[in-house]
């Protein structure tokens, strides 16, 4: 039996390009604001907002709305659950890529 997980069995919440980009970006920091995520992932506002809500619903990210001075600011953070899920996803992904002999 193959010792890798088929992509069809990957965590669907992460294995989707837009959400993967968001989670990969958040994995590189403690938290990021909405503007940063827009620039880093090159996703439009609506799509980013929609996908962040989906990730928040499953408990992968935590969204905090507040103010920086007088300017509204939305800060997004990967939760411990989200970080664990991403670590597991990376492991499965690497194992799968290694098994098909591509980099």
């Amino acid at each position: 039996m193959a010792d890798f997980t088929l992509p069809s069995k990957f965590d669907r919440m992460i294995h989707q390009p837009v959400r993967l980009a968001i989670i990969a970006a958040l994995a590189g920091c403690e938290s990021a604001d909405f503007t940063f995520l827009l620039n880093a992932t090159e996703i439009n506002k609506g799509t980013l907002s929609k996908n962040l809500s989906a990730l928040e619903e499953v408990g992968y990210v935590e969204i905090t709305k507040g103010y920086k001075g007088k300017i509204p600011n939305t800060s997004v953070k990967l939760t411990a659950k989200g970080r664990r899920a991403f670590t597991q996803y990376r492991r499965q992904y690497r194992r799968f890529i290694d098994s098909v002999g591509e980099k």
Partner: protein
Amino acid sequence: MDQRLDFEELTRQIRRLEFDDGLTDLQVSALFLFMNLAAAFGFSTAGLTWFAKALILQREITFIALAGIFACFVLVAFGSRRLIARVRRDYFWKDRGEIVPLHVGVDRWVSVLSAAVFLILTIFGLWLLLRGGSEDEAILRLIIAASGVATGITYLGMGRSLRLNRYLCVGIAGGLLSVVLFFVPLTYSGSWLGLGAIWTTILLASGLYALRRTRRGLAEANHG
């Protein structure tokens, strides 16, 4: 958005932001200078004599002064973090949005390896010291060199995992010079000063180089 997303690279790029502008290097270089100057004075004959006299004559004041120095160190460390965050928010990351960098920017395997090298060399030095027969100052220099080598390994590991060539150079130069320090016949206090000089200079150079490049990049972006 590019569908063929290299998500590992995206995570790496964002982790690298904390080190790209060189401000962290400048901060660490200042802390190295402060710590090593304190160690060099503390372990010098003058420092030890002063400390002994102060303990006998003004015990309470000495403890308050030491606590004050420690508080200053903590204040400088946290104050400089806030200052860096401010500079990034107002200048470097003005249009890009903000992040809070990871609390631990070093991979676990790097920390473990660097701590293991430090502990092995230190235990070896202490073993030689207890066994006798070797020059005491050389053994103490080994412990100081071990901390320099461990720091070098940390930077090498960070350079490798973040693909930051600057840190590969910092790690190799600092680590090798720390080894050289072991062979220089300095006193214990002098060796602390030497270690401080090595790491402060290397990190200062690295920080200034990165800062200059960041400022040039910003200027080009503003004019382009």
